[in-house]
């Protein structure tokens, strides 16, 4: 198994699934756009852009953002960090969980322009090089996922849950991880992974 695994990894200048989707979407959009955009019914106030600085996973960034952009959209679309997922985009599912100045938040419900100077950690920032974060390894060990879509949010939330001291028992983990929904129902593995890593101290 270990011998064949590298063949599954794309090599060289990879074209990611994401890039293909973006390009395709752009072509479709060109195809379907009306020749002239419809005039707005009412004048709207000019949307000024905001210039912000963020430190994400240790790296500094200076960015110009539209005030309407969520922190989630900026991470995914401007900083090319698509590990943080957009699930419900309503603050209900937890797939977009990141650490903002060390605390877990849902990045879909906050405007990036309001976070000048913030320090962020996303799922991409947990591993040290090729060495997985212990909680990432524990998710694999305990089968804490099926489709994997909620997993980045679960793991970032789990890291915070442990740091908060809210992972002392499976019951406590269930309560304090309730902001992360897994529709595959991998909860037993998720709870086991978080509880085990918390127990290691």
């Amino acid at each position, binding site marked *: 198994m270990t011998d064949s695994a590298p063949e599954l990894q794309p090599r060289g200048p990879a074209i990611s699934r994401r890039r293909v989707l973006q390009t395709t979407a752009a072509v479709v959009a060109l195809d379907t756009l009306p020749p002239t955009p419809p005039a707005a019914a009412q004048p*709207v106030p000019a949307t000024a852009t905001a210039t912000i600085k963020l430190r994400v996973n240790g790296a500094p960034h200076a960015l110009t953002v539209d*005030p309407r952009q969520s922190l989630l959209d900026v991470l995914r679309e401007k900083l090319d960090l698509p590990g943080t997922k957009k699930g419900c985009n309503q*603050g209900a599912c937890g797939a977009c969980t990141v650490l903002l100045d060390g*605390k877990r938040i*849902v990045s879909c419900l*906050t405007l990036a322009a309001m976070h000048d100077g913030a320090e962020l950690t996303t799922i991409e920032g947990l591993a040290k090089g090729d060495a997985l974060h212990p909680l990432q390894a524990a998710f694999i060990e305990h089968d804490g996922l099926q489709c994997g879509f909620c997993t980045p949010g679960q793991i970032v939330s789990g890291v*915070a849950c442990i740091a908060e001291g809210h992972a002392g028992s499976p019951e406590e983990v269930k309560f304090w991880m309730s902001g992360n929904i897994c529709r595959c129902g991998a909860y037993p593995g998720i709870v086991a992974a978080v509880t085990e890593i918390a127990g290691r101290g």
Partner: protein
Amino acid sequence: MLPFALEKARSTEDAIAAAAAGARYIAGGTTLVDLMREEVERPERLIDINALPLKDIHADGSDLVIGALARMAEVAAHPEVKRLQPVIAEALIEGASPQLRNMASMGGNLLQRCRCPYFRMLDAACNKRAPGSGCSAIDGLNAGNAILGTSASCVATHPSDVAVALVALGATMRVRGPKGERNLAVEELFRLPGDTPHLEHTLLPGELILDIRVPAGPYSRRARYLKVRDRASYEFALVSAAAALHVENGRIRSARLAVGGVGTRPWRLKACEEALAGKPVDRASFEAAARLATQGARPLSHNHYKVELLPRTIVRALEMAGEVA
């Protein structure tokens, strides 16, 4: 999301001036950003108040003072909150998710909008969102809606947990607006819907909540919050109750009781409180008082169960308060 201008307030005066000129305050944004994305809320100007010095949590004598910008999680974990008013921490922990509690401010929690499904459904009638359009919930999916304080125009519940505890404890707020500062009982913040359900609170234009004061009371230590819901965590209340008892020589000297999930605003139950005064701390006293809670209740097609669940929840919350050592 529709375009808007975003400004940052450098001082409370800045913020109030901007709000008096039509800007909306934004703090944690957990309600507002969500509703703006759905175009239920359409502010043209936002004033970010997060830099204002309104985050402090402290004891003032035996009173507890909570800055309006303190986050739910900070308040719930604060040693002075646990020492002076543990029921505030208990009610906060029962609300939202850990992520949202790290984001949402106390002032925003009180002013959050309703969770009636039709409020955010742009193609459905809703008097709160579009005054005069009608109420889809009265003959619709109303299992989560109110049975107390409703009108022919609106049957939405107020969704906050901590507001229920604050109302039970007689908390007040300091608010400041273009015409100066005043104090306001938290209970008086919330309007009944009547025929103007789009007007939800009694703040004057531009007024900003500065802090919340929870007065010390002889029942502060013997107070509990019970939330009954469809799952064990991260769900709004079907029924909730904040119950506080002042017990002397085995008898209830005075009681405080407010309930959530059933009223169009956090619902204080003074008749139940009066019925408890002077009674022994036992189930018979609790049941007799709880029976008064549903006086005037008007259940809808799908929420008759709340008429039964409300007194049961009250009895259990009073039992929990009575058990506190």
